[in-house]
């Protein structure tokens, strides 16, 4: 689904990302881990063409993301709160996203019904603008909005951060359900090794922009990661 060829991103002299070759097949749940500054968000921003590559290219579903805009029709993401529109209510925001992806209001409402548990009565019908919600509740909105319209590729940066424990567990269930339901390529970055090894079937470890480890998730993966990070 996604192919990365000799991708680098540098600012002046400093190279922040350098991935020679990476292939993410269709339907994979791809987990990205690494300390601060490892290049996780940079990689996602490159995938979404939010920043320019220094060299190399990213090809998503046969489309070079830096060349064409076509990838937008099957890709969605939630990177940070700049993906929310503060002056909208959650309902309006979902509708806006839905309409951008060609889904009418009725279908969005139907879609939201399946996530009533996830929202825990804190999101819908609150008569509040998104900017007035707590960070955690804002995140819930952004995460669910990323799944509107059945995108083939979903990119979530640190989805577990800021969420309360119940919602973290519900998010894991949600992600598993989504990936089982259809052929969804899901990219997640996280500092929570537990969650990421639980959800993802492949883990890539970045350090200073380079891939240090790239493994299918097994029962041992969590231990290996913990060993690496405690070393």
């Amino acid at each position, binding site marked *: 689904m996604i192919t990365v060829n000799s991708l680098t991103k540098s600012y002046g002299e400093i190279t922040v990302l350098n991935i020679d070759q990476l292939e993410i097949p269709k339907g994979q749940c791809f987990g990205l881990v690494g300390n601060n500054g490892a290049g996780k968000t940079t990689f996602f921003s490159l995938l*979404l*063409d*939010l*920043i*320019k590559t220094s060299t190399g290219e990213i090809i998503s579903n046969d489309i070079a993301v830096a060349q064409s*805009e076509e990838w*937008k*029709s099957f*890709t*969605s*993401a939630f*990177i*940070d709160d*700049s*993906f*929310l*529109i*503060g*002056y*909208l*209510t959650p309902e*309006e925001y979902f509708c*806006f*996203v839905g*309409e*951008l*992806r060609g889904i009418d209001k009725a279908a969005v409402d139907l879609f939201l019904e399946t996530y009533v548990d996830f929202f825990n009565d804190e999101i819908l019908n*609150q*008569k*509040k*603008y998104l*900017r*007035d919600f707590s960070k955690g509740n804002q995140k819930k909105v952004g995460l669910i909005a990323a799944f509107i319209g059945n995108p083939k590729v979903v990119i979530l940066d640190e989805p577990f951060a800021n969420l309360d424990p119940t919602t973290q567990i519900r998010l894991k269930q949600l992600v598993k359900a989504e990936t089982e339901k259809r052929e969804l390529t899901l990219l997640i970055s996280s500092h929570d090794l537990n969650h990421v090894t639980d959800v993802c079937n492949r883990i890539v470890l970045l350090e200073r922009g380079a891939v240090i480890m790239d493994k299918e998730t097994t029962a041992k993966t969590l231990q290996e990661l913990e060993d690496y990070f405690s070393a």
Partner: protein
Amino acid sequence: MPTSLFQLSRKKFLRAPQLEAKLAIKLLMGFIVLYFGGSLLFAGIAVYPILSDQFPERDPISIINSVLVLIFILELIIRYFLQQLPVTEIKSFLLLSIPKKRIIRNVLFRSLLSVYNAIPVLFYLPISISMLQDDYALGQVIAWWVAVTAFSLCLNFISFLANKNNKALAGFMILIILLYLSESYMDIETLRAVGYFFDAIITQPLWVLVPLGTFVLLYQITFSFLKKNLNLEGSLAAKKEVANAGRYDFLDVFGSHALFLKNDLRLIVRNVRPKNIVMMSFLFLFYGLFFFTQDNQPESLLVFASVFISGGFLLTYGNYVPAWDSEYYAFLMCQNLSYKKYLDSKWRLMTFAIIFSTVLSLPYLYFGVKIYLLILSGAAFNIGLGTWITLYGGLLNKQPLKLNVKAKAFENTQAFSGKMMLMIFPKMVLPVLLYIIPATLFNPTAGYITLAASGVLGIVFKNQILTQMAKLFAKQKHEMLQAFTQK
């Protein structure tokens, strides 16, 4: 370290991102402040002699006193919309061992240093000096000046208290309107009483204790208000409002453009900054009054005024398209949206505003059909060309805008650059040329036709222009994203 809080404000400025751009803006703003300050000073120097010249039978100072109340109301309105107490900066000091009282005193004192408080010095002081030359006793003059200054500074606190409390503002506005009505229809002298009060101060300087007392009282009220509310739930908290569930479904008639139009309307209605700016654009409607009421105005000025009347929205709001969307620009750039459609909806929004202003400007028919024809052809120019020039300028703008934050005093310049100044230039000069050249060569009718036709041209080639704009928009994407994420 009594000055350490001030040092922090200084560092805040010096270490801001994009310091150079900010410095340039500050310099430019400096000139503007100088200009306004100079005008005010000049007015202060000139008003007294002019009045005594024009109305030799009346005492100039009592004429000034009689309009003081209007000046105060105007000042309060300006302060209310533009001035902001630097309370949000307090947050980080709350946990430090600085006495709360000192933090508040610092905030209040700094608010007294705001440019708006230069008014008493620049405007009223020269008047006082004129009074001295006019044989008023020193005591009388000082009392008058202190009284006026104290009232002006009271407004400083009133605007702050009203800002935190919408009901207070509404109450105040209703009071003013009632007073005005009672004065004009029932002949009860209330607003004029303010004038008499200042007259009284000159005859009995001891009255000065009243404004001074009011000032001290307001200082205390603000102080205790801040002290009581100096916590994260009180005055430091951002206002949380109940979401207005207006669905804006009426916009659905615009089909696929409705999506962005709805959002733009919500953006304007629900955010402080765009709301203020759009309200300001209404003031442009009155621009014509300056020019049309005077005889023998050069035609170029009339064209200029006509274009301004319908173009207020372009100059205030339009200039910052697409920076209004800067807070969630990354989100927009990841969505499957057509740039052309996005820009087209922005164009439509501006066009509605122009048509709306043109309809509102119907009363200008009073000044004759010719003037209104000029306004109409100016509106056509604005729709066809003004919008495109504005959009082009907006696309070159790389300063993010914070939506729900008030513009600071003389700093309505987030998103302000030399390039944008260059863009304002053609908007002002081009219509004048388009009218004047054919009007002098042939006749005024040719002028109207050319001006209007230039606009029609812009509408006819809309699709081509949009395509070019969308290309530029796409080309600028990464630069914009980078600029807009800098906070």
